[in-house]
């Protein structure tokens, strides 16, 4: 009797107990509470900010994005006129940020790898030159370097009427590098589409060659074959289709060149500054990565009969990459964020166009800065995600 009573009134209690003391459930409950608190806090912040702005007679909202921008942007990768909206100006600025970041990352990586390997070279002069380059450029603030390069570019280049005449109707002056603009004709899309097809083909061949080498030991000139396909296929198609491409040649009209396309001096100076600066850090990363691979690895490769180049390409670099990629990612992130210094030299990036002109014309400071910060966060997260994916691919697979 007593026994039964006990169990009877203990059943609900033990159920409550089980829930209360269950680590998983408790974890969920507490995380839920924290999340709720965070959401409430965010709502409170937004609400309060809006209320206080209203009290100060400052309108709050995002309608301004649809209003006419009315200002000019020097570099317009997409359609943009004085009648375009602030939203369109935002896109132009964003694209300009992406252009300078992507080109900067490519250049900085190439320079960084070359310099990093040079610093380890047995050639004394080369190694010294690399050291001097790294130590000077790494230790001067980037803003100063950008201003320097901009000044240098502008003072070295002559005015547009005395510009250097280059092959293919190109011209280099202090208004930039003017080039003919390609105008695709009928059938040019086919040529364009053949490029990814050729790349896929080359990839298939590389895979087949690898499997065959693993099975039979026979090697295959993969590089030359892929190059032949990737270049050859589009070229053959282009010729067969009757060269469906014409060019708009830039002409000197009045003060400047009209027509064609231009790489403005601001972009040239940006790329010089930002890639030479970031390359110093990349070079050090590369050097560290190579030094991290023990010499035993090369010695083993040599004793297997691999030549020095093969040793570098097949043994050292793949192992070094595992050390190089994580810090390389943060260099890419730095470069993207540093590109916001562009406004100092008149390059129309997101910060200059959107957090500059749009912000000042509309006065919506909080909204504009919030959007701009969100964009940089998104760009960084995308870069990091891509690099993590790449890192996972090259990471050491433990067997």
């Amino acid at each position: 009797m007593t026994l039964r009573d006990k169990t009877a009134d203990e059943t609900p209690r033990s159920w409550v107990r089980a829930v209360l003391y269950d680590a998983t459930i408790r974890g969920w409950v507490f995380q839920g509470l924290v999340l709720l608190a965070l959401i409430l806090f965010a709502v409170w912040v937004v609400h309060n900010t809006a209320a206080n702005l209203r009290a100060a007679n400052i309108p709050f909202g995002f309608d301004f994005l649809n209003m006419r921008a009315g200002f000019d942007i020097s570099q317009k990768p997409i359609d943009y006129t004085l009648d375009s909206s602030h939203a369109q100006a935002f896109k132009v600025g964003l694209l300009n940020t992406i252009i300078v970041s992507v080109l900067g990352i490519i250049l900085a990586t190439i320079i960084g790898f070359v310099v990093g390997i040079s610093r380890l070279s047995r050639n004394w002069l080369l190694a010294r030159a690399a050291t001097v380059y790294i130590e000077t450029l790494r230790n001067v603030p980037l803003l100063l370097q950008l201003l320097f390069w901009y000044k240098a570019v502008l003072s070295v280049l002559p005015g547009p009427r005395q510009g250097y005449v280059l092959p293919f109707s190109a011209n280099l002056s202090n208004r930039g590098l003017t080039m003919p603009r390609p105008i695709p004709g009928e059938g040019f899309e086919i040529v364009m589409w053949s490029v990814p097809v050729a790349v896929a083909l080359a990839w298939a061949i590389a895979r087949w060659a690898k499997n065959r080498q693993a099975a039979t030991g026979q090697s295959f000139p993969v590089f030359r074959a892929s190059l032949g396909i990737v270049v050859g296929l589009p070229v053959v198609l282009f010729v067969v289709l009757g060269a469906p491409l014409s060019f708009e040649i830039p002409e000197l009209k009045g003060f400047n060149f009209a027509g064609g396309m231009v790489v403005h001096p601001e972009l040239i100076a940006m790329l010089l500054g930002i890639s030479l600066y970031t390359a110093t850090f990349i070079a050090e990363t590369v050097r560290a990565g190579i030094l991290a691979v023990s010499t035993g690895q090369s010695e083993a490769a040599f004793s297997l009969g691999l030549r020095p180049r093969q040793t570098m390409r097949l043994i050292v670099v793949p192992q070094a990459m595992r050390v190089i990629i994580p810090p390389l990612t943060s260099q890419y992130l730095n470069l993207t964020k540093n590109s916001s210094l562009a406004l100092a030299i008149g390059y129309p990036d997101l910060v200059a166009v959107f957090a500059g002109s749009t912000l000042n014309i509309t006065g919506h400071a909080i909204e504009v800065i919030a959007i701009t910060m969100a964009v940089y966060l998104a760009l960084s997260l995308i870069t990091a995600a891509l690099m993590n994916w790449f890192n996972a691919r090259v990471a050491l697979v433990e067997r």
Partner: protein
Amino acid sequence: MRSNTFKTLLLGAVFLGAGAVAASAGTLDDVKAKGFVQCGVNGAGLAGFGAPDDAGNWKGLDVDACRAVAAAVFGDPSKVKYTGLSAKERFTALQSKEIDMLARNSTNTMSRDTQLGITFTGVNYYDGQGFMVKKALGVSSAKDLNGASVCVQSGTTTELNLADYFKSNGMTFNAVVFEKQEEADAAYDAGRCDAYTTDASGLYSIRLKMTNPDDSIVLPEIISKEPLGPAVRQGDDQWESIVRWSHYAMLIAEEFGVTQANVDEMKSSENPEVQRLLGVGEGVDFGTPIGLTKDWAYNIIKGVGNYGESFERNVGEGSPLKIARGLNALWTKGGLQYAPPIR
């Protein structure tokens, strides 16, 4: 960008504070408690309007607007602290209460006056936008600038007027936009642009900063209206009145011949308007109702001078700029400067 982002974050932080604060009343009390007026002026230094002189003292027409307010509040025009602001930073600095008033060659426009939570209190200089070009181009009119590259500073009305002007004249152009005036100046100097554009008042002093000023000429066209004046935060009527009437007092003083030198003699003037201005006579007190003393305007004229004196000293014949009064003459002399009566 860094400082601007910072200011915006600051702005965010101010508006985030718990509970809605009454908009911005009490600026006068704050100023009295601090013991000085925090005044936003031109950051790059615009000669004649707001720039430190060789000894590091701020001088200029805009600076005099700040000094007049300090004289009205404290009886001492030197009780001002200055914050140099770029075109981009200026309104944020005012909104976030970093400064008590803004006097930085800022154009009154409808959107600024109605959408930024600020109010312009008057016009201390009627200006207009112009162009400067290299002589070698052989251009004599802005109408000849079709296809030109133009250097301009961002965050200004200048940037928008430029676009309007070329569009309405059916001309194309390429704007090279810089955040800082120094950078725009340097790029034009280095030949990056065919033309440079800003307020006419600024063009002359910027031309003098070029390596070879004589290589550039200012074109005759004025393409916009730029009424430049001080601004305060919306919602503090008392402070707004003080800043507005400090300017009017200087205009009225000029109109009735009251100068820094003769203001003490003028106290015995029989002219009732002058008596009301200087607070002379039984029950003549227009200062106390706005939180000041009855001799508020006397202090302005004693400490800063009348508008004409300030103009001549800073931008007129007594300065290197030698700008004629033009639109900025008093209404009695064919200009636009006009103050309502003190009554």
